[in-house]
């Protein structure tokens, strides 16, 4: 019988998401070199940084799609650094992917209800009801019977958000949710995300949409070279960035 230190058994803070000393390497490439982040309940944290800075990997570690090599990862009270307990997180957090990853052989409603039926094991009637509610929240109540291929990119991403929402997640993760969209479709997705933030959803968002970061985030984290270089309120990070790298990055993305 292995006895565990108290640190491993209970979360160190009341934060929804708490990472400390997280390291990750892929082969020779060290992607994360010791990252600490906390996300409080109801908080919206936006991760920004150049591609390759490790922010997507960090997000994937938060929902156990990647596992940290070192460090502690607590999400919704589950220690993801504990291999045996990590799978408890599935079904309790939502993930929105850059490529949507909708199930192409199922309708919008079929996508949203699949996990309700198979994981929550509620009745078809109750699942349909909750599924339609979730679709209504993203403004797609009338698209319940459409297949993903019949929807625009923006609509597909909103279905993907509804699919995550239907499970009543404790935290929602967004991995560059608008990067695969035509520019004119970005607004409908960030609009939905903004309304979720207003409703008090805990969110961690990796994005290049600086406007969204500026007006929706409670907290902005700038990552560079696998570490958190700078963080703070959007006013602080965007208004008076302390680090030269942050200034450079913001200069580049805000000018275009």
């Amino acid at each position, binding site marked *: 019988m292995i006895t565990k230190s108290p640190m491993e058994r209970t979360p160190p803070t009341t934060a929804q998401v708490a990472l400390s000393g997280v390291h990750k390497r892929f082969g020779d490439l060290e992607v994360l070199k010791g990252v600490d982040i906390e996300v409080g309940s109801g908080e919206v944290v936006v991760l920004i940084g150049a591609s390759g800075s490790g922010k997507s990997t960090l997000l994937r570690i938060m*929902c156990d*799609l990647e596992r940290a090599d070192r460090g502690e990862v607590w999400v919704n009270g589950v220690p993801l650094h504990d291999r045996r307990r990590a799978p408890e997180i*599935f*079904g*309790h*957090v*939502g*993930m929105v*992917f850059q*490529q949507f*990853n*909708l*199930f*192409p*052989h199922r309708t919008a409603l079929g996508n949203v209800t*699949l*996990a309700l039926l*198979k*994981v929550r094991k509620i009745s078809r009637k109750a699942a349909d009801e909750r599924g339609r509610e979730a679709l209504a929240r993203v403004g797609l109540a009338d698209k319940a019977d459409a297949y993903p291929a019949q929807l625009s990119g923006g609509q597909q991403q909103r279905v*993907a958000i509804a*699919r*995550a929402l239907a*499970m009543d997640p404790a935290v929602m993760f967004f991995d560059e949710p608008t990067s695969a969209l035509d520019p004119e479709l970005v607004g409908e997705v960030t609009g939905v995300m903004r309304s979720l933030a207003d409703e008090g959803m805990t969110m961690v968002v990796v994005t290049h949409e600086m406007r969204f970061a500026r007006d929706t985030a409670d907290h902005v984290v700038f990552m560079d070279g696998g570490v958190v270089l700078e963080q703070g309120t959007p006013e602080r990070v965007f208004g008076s960035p302390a680090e030269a790298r942050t200034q450079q990055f913001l200069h580049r993305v805000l000018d275009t």
Partner: protein
Amino acid sequence: MDWSVLWSNRDLYASGLWSTVELSAAAIAACTLLGLVIAAIRTSRIPVLAQLARCYLEVFRGTPLLVQMLFIYFGAAYLGIGNISVFGAALLALTLFQGAYVAEIFRSGIEAVPRGQWEAARVLGLSRVQTFGTVILPQTRAIVLPPLVGQYLSLVKDTSIAVVIGYAELLREGQAIVDRDGHPGMAYLAIAVLYFVICSPLSVVVRRMERKAVTA
């Protein structure tokens, strides 16, 4: 041409036809199931199991069905299987042989489904088995069905190999008729026609699916 030879032996032809259909149907069901399981194991990358599955594929695709069938029937005693029936040996050999090809068909279908589908299902809380059944397999349909039915066609024709271990299928009955009444040309033509009768509905299904796949 003396058609009466065919008619007078209609019972033998019918019983041969029935035996062939029976063996084909059982082998199609069994090799599909085996192929699915092997493909699932191969794509799961579970250490030892995946390697074993690979060995199985190499062995059964690298040796002739004829040899496999003879070995299973006559070698059964060595292997301790004891009294394997002729039907059992024929079914086992066909299943193992065709299962190897069916597994590769399923594997290519499964691998064509993007990894993001697995990831989305996983975060939603679906188990691997649930994901395989409700998310991955349905998406392989269009890729898998045409070559799968093609494989079934070759399986139906391969049942004729069971003649070597004495299974009383279509070819065997035909040979018996030739031995007794002569007219080999007529008899073998009749047998070919009967195989064609079993296979043609399958061919029609494939062609319809291929046409659908092009327009889709």
